[in-house]
């Protein structure tokens, strides 16, 4: 009887040797690093674009899928995606999901943090030159940030 069941089992068993998904680009985050997790995600996606591992038009996983795969909070991945979309590295097309932006390669080279630091640095320098004290600049900056 066991042989009879074995025979039927072998006929019925679905081969599970492989799936037809190609592994394209792996992303790795480290929860021990001081760099915020959303920054690690953004940097790696940008790097993958610059290295040509991700090409314009390539689809990205959904926020839910990526967050669950990396065991992260959904908001962390959502934040990374939102900032990448702002930088035009990725684009979201409703139900069609998220994909790499057409101009992603050029836009990935733009470092928003560096750009902000440079611009603010220049402004502070010119304000100091015109005689404004650091405390006046700080107060004005905090008022502007509140608006």
């Amino acid at each position: 009887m066991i042989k009879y069941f074995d025979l039927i089992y072998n006929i019925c068993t679905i081969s599970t040797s492989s799936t037809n998904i190609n592994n394209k680009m792996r992303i790795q985050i480290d929860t021990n690093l001081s760099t915020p997790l959303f920054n690690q995600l953004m940097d790696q996606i940008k790097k993958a674009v610059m290295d040509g591992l991700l090409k314009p038009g390539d689809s990205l996983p959904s926020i839910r899928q990526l967050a669950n795969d990396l065991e992260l909070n959904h908001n962390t991945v959502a934040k990374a995606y939102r900032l990448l979309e702002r930088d035009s590295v990725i684009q979201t097309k409703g139900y069609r999901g998220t994909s790499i932006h057409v101009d992603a390669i050029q836009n990935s080279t733009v470092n928003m943090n560096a750009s902000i630091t440079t611009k603010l640095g220049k402004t502070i320098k010119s304000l100091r030159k015109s005689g404004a004290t650091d405390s006046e600049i700080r107060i004005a900056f905090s008022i502007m940030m509140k608006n």
Partner: protein
Amino acid sequence: MNIDFLLYIVLFSQIMFLSYYYPRRMLIRIHTIFKNYPPDEFPKLYPESIDKYRKLAKRYQRMNHLMIGLGLGLILWFYVTPRTGEWDQVIVFWYFMIQFIPNIGIDLWAMKYHNAMRLLNQDTQKEAVLQPRRLTDFASKSLLGTVFVIYVIFVGFIAYVDQFDYSWFSGYLTVLIISGTYLFFGLIIYRTMYGKVKNPHQSYEDRKIDIQTLIRQVISIAIAVTFYAMLQISLKALGIESFKAVTISLYFHVIGFLSMQWPRLDFINFDVYKDKPDLTK
């Protein structure tokens, strides 16, 4: 052949298949893992003591022996008790429900096992593949198309039977029940594809194979459920209800076969279980 005699044969086959053969394959698999991947070499595979897992395997075996005894007792009871056969199908159904309890126990144990693995996991590095998972990556378009065609045939079949105004026929409620079942299966597939990672050490390739196996199982079961529903209605309409108990038992054979598809051990990457978890160092 006498219908009662046929029922005894089919029911005996169900007992042996689901309470002897199926657990036997499961236990061979478990003991092969214990033997080929011992705790000293693959510590991450054993979040708790191997003796505990051995005891659980033994308990699973004993429970199945109990199910065999219960099943053989049921056949004996069928044999000695004069009956109309009206309740045979219900009895076979409930026997199956009880017979499957050890396997539900195994599933619950697997959940606890993965929870323990996650608790012990001290790995701060997490990895994912930047590629969306789609249903067609795991099930061919032809298989999905087949399920859809079978569902359409089922709705057409119900519409056809409905015109005869059988008093027992629940009409489109059957369509609603089958649609609900499909929806439930759809939720299982969605959770499997996009849900949380159960095994924190499992390689992405192995996870893909697990997802594929489960999706194909669920789709095959959906097809089997639909065919079974049509078969049951046909038997009643044709007035050969006496075969209902036999057909339900055969249906459970099919469900058992479909549930028994596990990824081959030699395809699994066990190297990921090699490092010792920090907490047990």
